[in-house]
Each structure stands twice: as structure tokens, then as C-alpha cells.
């Protein structure tokens, strides 16, 4: 462990800023995925293990649209929307059958979907990794220098996009009728039914929104790297860490936890480069032991 390296970094503006910006970008991409996961859990009570597979689908969908149209924005949006629609079908066909089942049944159902999707994308798009969709041309410019710290404009764009998504999500959840219905469904679906609202529709909508967020995360990830079967498996574990740390079902908790994990990765790479994953799991253990409901979760 190189505590001094960490200390050096914190007192050097260049290091502090670039690692912070890097951590923020990691965290914000993670938030996109984790927010969908925590939303689905909070409202439907389902641990959607297949959320990572939806993220992967987002990457593949956007790759496909990119290769046909060559338009970055269109690729990302249609990747996200495509996964949203896929999520809706998934919810109607499978997930709604296990709303009231044991945790074990939910997990196994989702896990089987991961196994199936991982192989299906290989059958459809081939075994090799695909090259990703790249960064749009406007962002193929020299990076910015802030106090000697280098920050690529595209990262700023990603942070901004994710922040906007977070803000929109906040607005949807607090200001729109749909959001109010969603929050009410999470608390007391039966009362809502008695008020004449078909909560099945709300649930399907929530799952669709959650899938959309996973797809968006996957599509943006495809701009920064290769697209490959099984790419959802590492993001799903990180998303769970975020969800648990933030409090299961809490979107603001997921936001906070995403930043914590982003920073843990970014500064962990300076201090304990060989144990960055271990740091995340350690945080998760500590949170579960000290405050099982998570940083922003509510006690049952």
C-alpha cells in the first residue's frame, strides 16, 4: 500500500483534479446503470441480476445502429430505447411471474437470462469483441488542461450527460405524475389499486425505465471501449455494490454511492493499485455490517 503516493496526489492540484475528474466519470457511468437497478428493486422488490446483461445489450444495439447509420447520437439513444423495449418484453414475459417469489427463484430466473443473452449476442454478433462506437467527432479534440490536470472533453460530456440523466430522473420521480405513481407503488401498491390505478402498468413502466438506463450506460460504455459478450458481468457486481452502499431502492443513495465507488477506484489506483476491487468489497462489507439499510436507505 502506497499511502505516500496517495498523500502526494492529494496535495498536488494536477493529480487531485485529474483523479477526481476521472473518479467522477467512472462514478457517473456507474450511476446510470446502478440507478436502474435500484429503481427496479425499490418499486418491484426484484433483484434484477440480469441488469448487467441489459447493459451489454445496450452496447450491442448501439453498435448495430452505429454500423448502419454512422450517427453517434442516434446510436446511443436507440441503444437505450431498444433496451427499454426489450426490458418491457422481458418484464411482461418473465419478471412479472416472479414478483412474489422467493429471492432464490428471482435470482435463478435472472441468472438464466444472463446465460442465455451472453450466448445469444455471440450467435448474432459473433464471438469476437466488437470495436465499440467510438467518440463523436466533435470530441476528437485535444484535451483540456486545468491546473496541469488533463481532462478530455468527452469525459466532461459524459459527466454532464449523466448528471442531466440524474436530474431528469429526479424530476421524473418528484415532479411528474408517473414519478409520483411510481413512488406510491413502491410504498403501497394495494391502496393505489383501490384508487383506480393499474399498478401492473406502473411496474412495467418502471422496469422499462430501469432497462433504458442500463441500455444508456451500455451504449455510452461502447463509445469508450470494446463491446463483448459477458461485458455486463463486471458492471453488475459494481452496480450491486453501489446499490447496497447507497441503500436498496434509493436513487439519491445510488448517486452518492456511485461517486464514492468512482473515487475509491480512482484514488485506490494510486494508493493500492493491486487491491482496488478489494477496497470496494471492503466498503460494502463495512456498510452492511454497520448500516445494513445503506447510507441513504430507510430502516424497515
Amino acid at each position: 500500500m502506497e499511502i505516500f503516493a496517495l498523500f502526494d496526489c492529494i496535495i498536488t492540484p494536477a493529480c487531485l483534479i485529474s483523479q477526481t475528474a476521472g473518479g467522477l466519470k467512472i462514478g457517473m457511468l456507474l450511476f446510470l446503470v446502478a440507478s436502474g437497478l435500484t429503481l427496479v428493486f425499490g418499486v418491484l422488490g426484484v433483484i434484477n441480476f440480469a441488469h448487467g446483461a441489459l447493459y451489454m445489450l445496450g452496447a450491442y444495439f448501439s453498435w448495430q445502429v452505429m454500423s448502419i447509420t454512422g450517427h453517434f447520437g442516434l446510436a446511443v439513444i436507440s441503444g437505450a430505447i431498444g433496451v427499454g423495449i426489450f426490458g418491457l418484453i422481458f418484464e411482461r414475459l418473465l419478471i412479472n411471474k416472479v414478483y412474489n417469489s422467493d429471492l432464490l427463484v428471482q435470482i435463478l430466473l435472472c441468472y438464466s437470462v444472463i446465460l442465455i443473452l451472453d450466448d445469444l449476442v455471440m450467435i448474432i454478433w459473433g464471438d469476437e469483441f466488437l470495436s465499440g462506437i467510438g467518440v463523436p467527432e466533435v470530441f476528437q479534440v485535444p484535451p483540456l488542461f486545468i491546473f496541469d490536470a488533463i481532462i478530455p472533453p468527452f469525459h466532461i460530456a459524459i459527466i454532464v450527460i449523466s448528471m442531466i440523466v440524474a436530474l431528469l430522473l429526479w424530476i421524473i420521480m418528484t415532479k411528474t405524475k408517473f414519478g409520483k405513481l411510481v413512488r406510491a407503488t413502491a410504498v403501497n401498491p394495494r391502496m393505489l389499486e383501490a384508487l383506480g390505478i393499474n399498478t401492473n402498468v406502473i411496474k412495467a413502466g418502471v422496469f422499462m425505465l430501469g432497462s433504458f438506463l442500463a441500455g444508456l450506460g451500455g451504449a455510452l460504455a461502447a463509445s469508450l471501449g470494446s463491446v463483448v459478450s459477458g461485458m455486463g458481468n463486471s458492471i453488475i457486481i459494481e452496480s450491486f455494490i453501489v446499490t447496497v452502499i447507497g441503500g436498496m431502492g434509493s436513487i439519491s443513495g445510488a448517486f452518492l454511492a456511485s461517486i464514492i465507488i468512482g473515487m475509491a477506484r480512482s484514488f485506490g489506483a494510486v494508493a493500492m493499485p493491486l487491491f482496488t476491487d478489494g477496497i470496494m468489497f471492503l466498503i460494502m462489507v463495512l456498510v452492511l455490517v454497520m448500516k445494513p439499510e445503506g447510507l441513504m436507505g430507510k430502516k424497515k
Partner: protein
Amino acid sequence: MDLLETKSINAFYGNSQVLFEMNLNIKKNNIIALLGRNGAGKSSTFKAITGLINVKSGSIKLKGEELIKQSTSKRALAGIGYVPEDRQVFPEHTVEENIELGKKKNLNGIDNWPIDKIWETFPILVKLKNRLAGQLSGGEQQMLSIARTLVGNPEILLLDEPSEGLAPIIVEDIAKILENLKKLGVTILLAEQNMHFCMEVAKEAIIIDKGKAVWTGSLNDLQKDTKTRDKYLAI
């Protein structure tokens, strides 16, 4: 034709039966008291009508239309308005949002309860508009719960023990509101243990005991009929 008619309802919680061949006939524009001791089956009757518990056999008709196969939300859309005993407001929504969630037109597309009329009817809620419902007092929550159901333009209001656990002065306020609603022509089925409270607002009463309707008549008669009262209501 009766507004609401239930016939031979047998209802269950899990495998324990709570309603036995329950029959009710409710006419329009009226407040009817549903009396009975604790555990007699008043709440279960309401839950059976709204579809919140499992009804194995029987018939529930609203304006002649059979509801027994319908989901809870469909029944609500058909005109069943339910105000549960424990109010069940959404604690993390504001008062205004709670009301917004209940907002719907009746089946004919008519809105008898625009929001302004709600504020008029429940003046106490006006200044609480932006307060979280979870922070309201019991009486305020009760008002909110009633208001939330009313904006949905129900044909009938199932009101479960609105006076329960409330201070007497608040109970009075609620009674006043019910009087007011009666004047506006709302049909209310009012479940109560507290006969005294019913006397103020209702004329007709149905007594249920052990999951069955056992007596129907006017409250005035009941007041005089000590035998029935002792048998089903008193100790």
C-alpha cells in the same frame, strides 16, 4: 335498483373465512351505518367489495354491473371509493400529491369533484397542501384520505371507522364533513363501532356480526331496540 348490492359473499383471509353469505343492499344518496363489534367483519366487508381480499363465491353489483371478476383498480374505476380504516395515505407524498394520485373522472367522464371543490370542502387541508402526508395528525390524515377518494368521483364511498383513534373534537369535524357530503348527495357506507357518532350522520343502519348481516333498519329504531343492541353491539 340498489346502487350497491352484494349477494352471498364468502370471503377469506388465507384459509380463514371472514364473511359468511354476506348480503347488503345500498340505495343511492344516503349515508348508511355499518355497525358491529370489533372483529365482526366490517373491514372485511369493505375489502371484499374493493377486491382486496379473496372472495370465493357470491356477487357484487354496482349499478347492476357485476364486479366480482374485476381487479381492484377496475372496481375503483367503476365507482367504488374506499377509505381504509388506517387511512393509508402515502406518507412521503405531499397532501396535494396524495390528492393528485386519486384524481380521476367517473365512468361517464364527468368530474363532480374538481380540486377547488375539495379545498372548499376540506378547508383544513388548504394550508397543509405542501406538507408531507406522513407528518399530518390522525384527523388530518383522515380528511386527506377521504378527499383523495372523493376526487376520484366514486359512486359510493366506503368509509371504514373514520372516528377511530381520534380526539373527540376532531371526530366532530369529521362528522360535519360527512353531513356536508350527505348534502352534496354522496352515497356513503360508514363502518363504525361508535354508534353515537353514527347517530349524528346516518339514518339507516346495518348490523353485522360474525361475518354476516344480521339486522337492517333505522337508527332511531335501533336506539330504542335495547335487545338488539345488547345482542350485537353492547357488552
